């Protein structure tokens, strides 16, 4: 009897595993480690073959002139991996500061291609190339304007390829900021009716951009005095020392996805250092965004207004200046004044409210079209924001116990989930 009961239990267990898809065993319980290191090779999903991605470029959106200092930004770049024959098509939107070809975007492209989709990878509206070539205003971060820009780009891409692609239906996803972008694009499409998305998946979305970015910004400013170059120098020197040790000790150091993991194992960094690293990497990426935007919109935040930079002019001082701009400063000294000039009645709180998922609350709640996946320990979310997302998406929410911010993106269970959700 015991044996039979035992067997029964085992088969139940197996069945439950089967129902859950692949077992989720992600190695890092520390969200800082997860966010920095990602998914090491031993836990990494494997694809039969890489998606046959081709890179394309669209001319800049109407009326945009590209200044000489950005001479190379003459096309809006994106990638397409096309299936043979008829298939659903999915648009994937990158996270803050990331391009269409970043490693996370390549992972998502491979995942959806293997699941049978035509895949179009789009840069984030905060990516320099997108700001220069595809943003009407040149000032990124306003979710409904970014949705207009993205929607226009998606339409142009579809026009360009529609003759050669057999599409059975449209899908949409994005990670991090790209997830929030996807939700706004989805709502825009309800009015415009161009694609009629069957399913829209938000991967590790922020609830409030302002809160999320402030959390990341604090990781830098809590640990380091950015206004004191000596302290930045010291941190960088320590980091580079670790890299150098690893480089000098190892017979062969090939830079690949696992380099960070090796570095992590070698250096055993404190949480404080990891946190600083995340903040610093974010700050460098926001420096790209802020300077590009300032040049394109001629707002005079960093570059003197009306000064035309040449292609051989030094930008080193602009890099120094823009990497010191905190998010609050960007918001209060640049973003808010820009939108208040267009609409003097706009208050700070109203703008803050617009930069979040909350304006979409009634659109998302109870709507089976939109699904969401995140991690309970995602660094860009406060605990009450995780609860808000769980509540907002209801049955369409999936929350993994760990993984930090997009750290488990390449885990087989995560990949299996994000593709299963999209099954036509």
């Amino acid at each position, binding site marked *: 009897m015991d044996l039979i009961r035992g067997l029964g239990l085992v088969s139940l267990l197996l069945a439950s595993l089967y129902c859950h898809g692949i077992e989720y065993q992600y190695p890092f319980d520390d969200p800082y480690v997860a966010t920095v290191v990602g998914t090491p090779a031993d836990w990494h999903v494997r694809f039969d073959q890489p998606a046959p991605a081709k890179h394309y470029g669209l001319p800049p959106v109407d009326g945009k002139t590209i200044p000489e200092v950005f001479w190379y930004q003459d096309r809006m*770049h994106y990638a397409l991996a096309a299936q043979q024959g008829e298939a659903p098509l999915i648009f994937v939107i990158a996270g803050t500061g990331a391009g269409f070809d970043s490693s996370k975007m390549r992972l998502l492209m491979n995942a959806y291609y293997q699941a049978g989709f035509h895949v179009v990878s789009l840069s984030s509206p905060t990516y320099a190339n997108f700001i*220069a070539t595809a943003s009407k205003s040149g000032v990124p971060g306003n979710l409904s304007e970014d949705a207009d820009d993205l929607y226009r780009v998606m339409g142009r891409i579809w026009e360009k390829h529609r003759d050669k692609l057999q599409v059975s239906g449209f899908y949409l996803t994005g990670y991090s900021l790209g997830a929030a972008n996807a939700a706004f694009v989805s709502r825009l499409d309800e009015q415009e009716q161009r694609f009629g998305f069957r399913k829209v998946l938000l991967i590790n979305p922020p609830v409030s951009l302002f809160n999320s970015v402030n959390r990341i910004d604090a990781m830098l400013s809590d640990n380091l005095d950015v206004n004191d170059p000596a302290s930045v*120098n010291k941190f960088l020197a320590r980091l580079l020392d670790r890299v*150098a040790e690893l480089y000098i000790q190892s*017979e062969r150091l090939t830079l690949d996805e696992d380099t960070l993991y090796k570095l992590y194992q070698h250096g055993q960094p404190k949480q404080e250092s990891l946190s600083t690293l995340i903040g610093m990497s974010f700050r460098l990426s926001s420096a790209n965004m802020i300077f590009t935007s300032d040049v394109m919109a001629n707002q005079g935040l960093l570059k003197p207004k009306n000064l*035309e930079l040449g292609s*051989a002019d030094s930008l*080193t*001082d602009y890099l120094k*200046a823009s990497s010191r701009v905190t998010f609050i400063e960007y918001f209060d000294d640049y973003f808010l004044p820009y939108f208040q000039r267009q609409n003097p009645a706009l208050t700070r709180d109203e703008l803050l409210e617009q930069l979040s998922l909350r304006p979409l609350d009634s659109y998302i709640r109870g709507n089976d079209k939109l699904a969401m996946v995140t991690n309970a320990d995602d660094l860009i979310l406060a605990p009450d924001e995780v609860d808000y997302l769980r509540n907002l998406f209801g049955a369409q929410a999936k929350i993994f116990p760990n993984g930090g911010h997009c750290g488990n993106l390449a885990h087989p269970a995560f990949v299996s989930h994000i593709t299963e959700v999209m099954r036509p």
Partner: protein
Amino acid sequence: MRWFLKWKFWPLLMAIAVSGCSTTSAIKETPQTPAMQAKVSSNQAYPIDVHDPWERFNRGMYNFNAKFDRYLFIPVVDTYETILPNFVEAGVSNFFSNLGEISNIINSALQLKGTSTVVGVSRLALNTTVGILGLWDPATLIGIYEKKEDFGQALGYWGVGSGPYLVMPILGPSSLRDTAGFATDSLVFNAIDPLNYDDHSNREAPVTGLKTIDARHNVKFRYLQGGTPFEYEKVRYLYLKKREFDILK
């Protein structure tokens, strides 16, 4: 690489690179200095600051290299990769890497690095014989990994600083020291003349062409893909840091 140093069009190319890409800033209206700029102080050392007195020339050359890459170099490399099967590409890489052992051996010896010198000699001997003139790399298979050494590193080992940052045409980021090192390595290679160009001068152009394509084929980096306006600064910083590490290694 002799054509590289002697090529008569260099002055012309340099002129294009510098004049064509380095138009000075035109100011339409009086620019106002923004408040943010005042935050940058000139009397502090920033990590990103390096000795780059020829920055305007270097940026012109960087842009030239990016255009050369985009319109000529990468299309040629793409064609090369499309036409040839991977094992042939690997064979070509092994062949040139094996020739590079000559420079590794000499420069290891100059730095009194016994192990590296022995490794270089063993690799050269094994790969030239068992590896069929270097087309195959059995040395790596049995765990004797290449130790790259060049004359720039040897100079660095003996205390020569990098000198000003310098962007070389086509070859890209370098420094005054490393450019001098590169020139010396090329001269030494020509003096040893392992491919016997002296008797077969018709070999030199195609071999050098193939070597150049193979070198680009092995570097994944693509110029100015549009993610950052500060690529020049970042590449400059990383290049000089990596060279510091190379010299310590």
